[in-house]
């Protein structure tokens, strides 16, 4: 982000907070319905150790889920692309995996994988898997025909080297947009998993805070989640920009 853009972002953030603060004050909303941003800030500071404890759990779940889902997605996309004959078998399965709402699976996953971190990691990776697979698969398939023709004209060209040196570099920007989606989805998966059944994590904390009318604490947890998502998104978009920069000149 350029300083200019960062400033614009900061300004819009401040004005939203100001509007929020004014609205709550003006309408005299009680804090158990909507706390002011200042109250949320206070709660952030006041509950710092508690929030840190639960954040570390959720962060780990997001990280492992993101890594697992992305890894499987990349592997699956490459396999699907490299072996056209298996596509009719697996492409519908891929769609079905997306048609099943992951939220509906959450209770099952908790039943199967337990209350601990495993079920949340699986949730997050399931939700990440599809956007990564489909983005990379499309990217691999969109390699310019002229390059494929040129590669095909070379006798003794190794299939995996063509994949590694032509298809994969071409598909990196597409993979990047898949990762951006994944970055925003992974925290959702982890939190849903925590809602369904857990004893730790920001999702668990939010449920409890909600039940005890500690809406300021809930908003504090929410804001931490937003920061996590934004940072992940930032990393993914840095990756994308790095690689699309290198190949602006594609044909």
């Amino acid at each position, binding site marked *: 982000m350029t300083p200019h853009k960062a400033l614009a972002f900061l300004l819009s953030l401040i004005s939203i907070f100001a509007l929020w603060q004014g609205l709550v004050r003006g309408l005299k909303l009680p804090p158990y319905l909507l706390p002011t941003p200042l109250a949320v800030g206070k709660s952030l500071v006041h509950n710092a150790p508690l929030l840190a404890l639960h954040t570390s759990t959720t962060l780990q779940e997001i990280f492992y889920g993101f890594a697992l889902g992305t890894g499987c997605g990349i592997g699956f996309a490459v396999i699907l692309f490299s072996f056209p004959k298996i596509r009719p078998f697996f492409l519908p399965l891929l769609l079905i995996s997306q048609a099943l709402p992951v939220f509906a699976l959450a209770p099952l996953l908790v039943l199967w994988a337990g209350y601990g971190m495993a079920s949340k990691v699986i949730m997050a990776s399931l939700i990440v898997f599809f956007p990564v697979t489909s983005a990379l698969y499309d990217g691999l398939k969109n390699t310019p025909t002229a390059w494929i023709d040129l590669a095909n004209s070379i006798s003794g060209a190794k299939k995996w080297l063509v994949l590694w040196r*032509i298809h994969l570099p071409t598909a990196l920007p597409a993979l990047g947009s898949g990762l951006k989606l994944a970055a925003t989805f992974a925290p959702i998966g982890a939190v849903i998993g925590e809602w369904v059944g857990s004893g730790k994590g920001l999702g668990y904390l939010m449920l409890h805070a909600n039940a005890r009318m500690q809406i300021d604490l809930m908003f504090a947890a929410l804001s931490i989640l937003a920061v996590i998502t934004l940072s992940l998104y930032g990393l993914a978009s840095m990756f994308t920009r790095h690689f699309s920069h290198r190949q602006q000149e594609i044909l």
Partner: protein
Amino acid sequence: MPYPEGSIVQAMLRGYNNHSYGYGDPLNLIWLTPAKGTGLSSYSLSILALSFGQTPVMASQALTIPQGEITCLLGRSGVGKTTLLKVLAGIFPSPPETRNPKPETVTYHPQQDCLLPWCTALENVLFAARLKARRTTQEQQSIALTLLAQVGLADYAHHRPAQLSGGMRQRVALARTLFQDTPLVLMDEPFSALDYTTRTELHALTKRLLQGKTVLVVTHDPFEALTLGTHFLLLEGSPAVLNPLRRADIQQMLQGAA
């Protein structure tokens, strides 16, 4: 015409015209082989039939292409020049009965420069080597550097395509073609995207560097054909037929157009 024994019958029997190739089902039966009896001075180009699915594209015929010289293949767009070239280059999958030139004896020079934007000029010249093995040898690298020097880009070996002009990129592509060092080179409208001056420079360079190789250049520009080629073929009609042209015919074509 001496067709290799019964191969079209075999191809038909084995149902190759019903076989899906993903490229619109070309049934290609084209031979480009060193001609018998004429020593090593020419290739004979025998086309048995070429069709996309049920649509015949090229009629059967036999021609000779002089070895070690540049033959230009003229024709209006859509007549099948590029298709013919791609079949010869082994890009379209072909039934085993066909006797296309051995893939290792042919280099295909595509229409665009087709440089990989994330690779340096040097890596692009090494394209073929980099698809055959994980690492390129010291020797291959020094050959590539020499070729880059020959096309006048000695100082640009580590530049990426985005940092090069259209003419320079085409020079890199030329070096990439030379790197494969095959007796047959097939070029598909190689300089069509360049301005007049750059194109003229590249014509001279191509003639000089490809000396001794058998080159088939597809072009729709009679001027280009006259500058580059020593022999000329015109592809016309439907299904298309290749007719030899003389230099005078092309000059006449140009006068007729003007």
